């Protein structure tokens, strides 16, 4: 039989190849990385987790064991016991570097294409739907980015702002899409592999975006968010060029 083409294989794509325990570790790590789970927060009880992930108790315990070993969670016994998030997972620089080496510029552009589509509609809807309270919260989240003093906390602060913009737009589907896109790229943006990314400019852009949303200026908000994404993508491509083709500038041919 001919092997299916790549769009077809989207339909039949294999379920994640990594073991299910690894998949759980990955999900929880990313959720903490994005700030969706906070340090100090208690995870649901084991039985509930097994049921939600659809895995057996042994698989779940294996996953939690791995997370404990990485120092990300801690399990306490007793009445007020349970599994708690105790630290931000360390950014895996090697993983991020590999991502840059194995991802082509055309693929990075394509991520930007999708992100632009999602974000443009998100901010337009946020203009229509956000309450004053949402705008205040977005403003706070925008400021949190410039207050964050390490790359490890800048990544979740940045992604949190964008995810909550989709929350203000009141679309769970757009919020899910935004979460997926943030998971895919936010660490790459902030991990200082080459030139550091400037949190002050990103914050200024976020704040300007909130103002446009608060003043119900959809055209302006859309323009701002598209420029913002374009700048992010430009930075990712710059990193890719520096990491992947560093030699070519000096060597010529």
């Amino acid at each position, binding site marked *: 039989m001919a092997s299916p083409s790549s769009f077809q294989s989207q339909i039949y794509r294999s379920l994640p190849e990594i073991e299910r325990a690894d998949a759980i570790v990955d999900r929880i790590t990313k959720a903490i990385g994005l700030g969706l789970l906070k340090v100090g927060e208690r995870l649901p009880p084991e039985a509930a987790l097994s049921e939600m992930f659809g895995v057996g108790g042994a698989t779940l315990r294996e996953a939690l064991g791995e997370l404990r070993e990485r120092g990300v969670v801690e399990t306490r016994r007793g009445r007020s016991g349970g599994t708690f998030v105790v630290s931000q997972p360390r950014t895996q620089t090697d993983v991020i570097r590999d991502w840059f080496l194995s991802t*082509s510029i*055309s693929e990075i552009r394509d991520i930007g294409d999708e992100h632009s589509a999602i974000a443009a509609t998100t901010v337009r809807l946020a203009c229509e739907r956000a309450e004053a309270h949402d705008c205040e919260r977005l403003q706070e989240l925008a400021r949190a980015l410039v207050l964050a003093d390490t790359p490890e906390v800048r990544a979740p602060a940045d992604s949190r702002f964008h995810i909550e913009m989709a929350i203000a737009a009141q679309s769970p589907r757009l919020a899910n899409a935004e979460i997926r896109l943030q998971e895919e790229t936010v660490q790459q943006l902030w991990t200082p592999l080459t030139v550091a990314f400037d949190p002050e400019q990103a914050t200024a852009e976020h704040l300007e975006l909130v103002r446009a949303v608060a003043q119900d200026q959809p055209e302006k908000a859309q323009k701002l968010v598209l420029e913002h994404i374009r700048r992010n993508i430009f930075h990712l491509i710059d990193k890719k060029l520096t990491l992947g083709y560093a030699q070519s500038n000096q060597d010529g*041919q």
Partner: protein
Amino acid sequence: MKPTAEVVQAASALSSWLSGVCTEVNKLSSDVSTRLERNLAGRSSVDSAALEGLDECPRKFLTKNSYAAGAGTFFAVETLGEGVPALDWWARKEYGTIGRLDLDMTPGSSRYYDYEKLPFFSTAASTGEQSMWGPYVDFLGFEEYILTFAAPLGIQGRFSGVAACDIRIKDLEPLIMPTLRAISGDAALLNASNRVILGNSGSYLVGERIKSGQPNQHRMNLDVPHLGLSLIYMV
């Protein structure tokens, strides 16, 4: 203004690499045509017997030219006999193996791959010259973001289809980026419709159409016959 030495050098390196691809595709076309003519022994329409051993040509092409993701032949429908497959296409699959690509060739079907209407085929048919199409997403075909280099295929002097190869944009990048990066300012390789094939910075992204007449933007045509390629660079 005269282009700088680094631009001239890059343009010549690109021209020579791309001409090399054209030469290979031309050779594929003549190999296929020789094989078909021998098998046909004077018969005019391509029947199953004529396809005997034809797959050797694209397989050899792919083994030799590691930059290509796929290669083969698309026949003009009017040259085909009853029940003969319209294409003989081979693609690089996982684990480095080369396998046949089967496409839906049933007119009216929702996955029908109407290749005679696609530019890589129709240009070769109408001009009788080599062509390059892309970057494009080859929906229902190879379904990747690719360039297709095509050369018309003749049987006893009559247009009978095209021989072609696909290069994935992702694979092209590491091959020609070093050449583009040797230019110190922003620069990009453009196709005949002024769209970017590859740029050396985030300023020129693959697929974008470049408006001419921008200040400080210069252009140099590449010496690759019929493809209409050029190099633009900022000074």
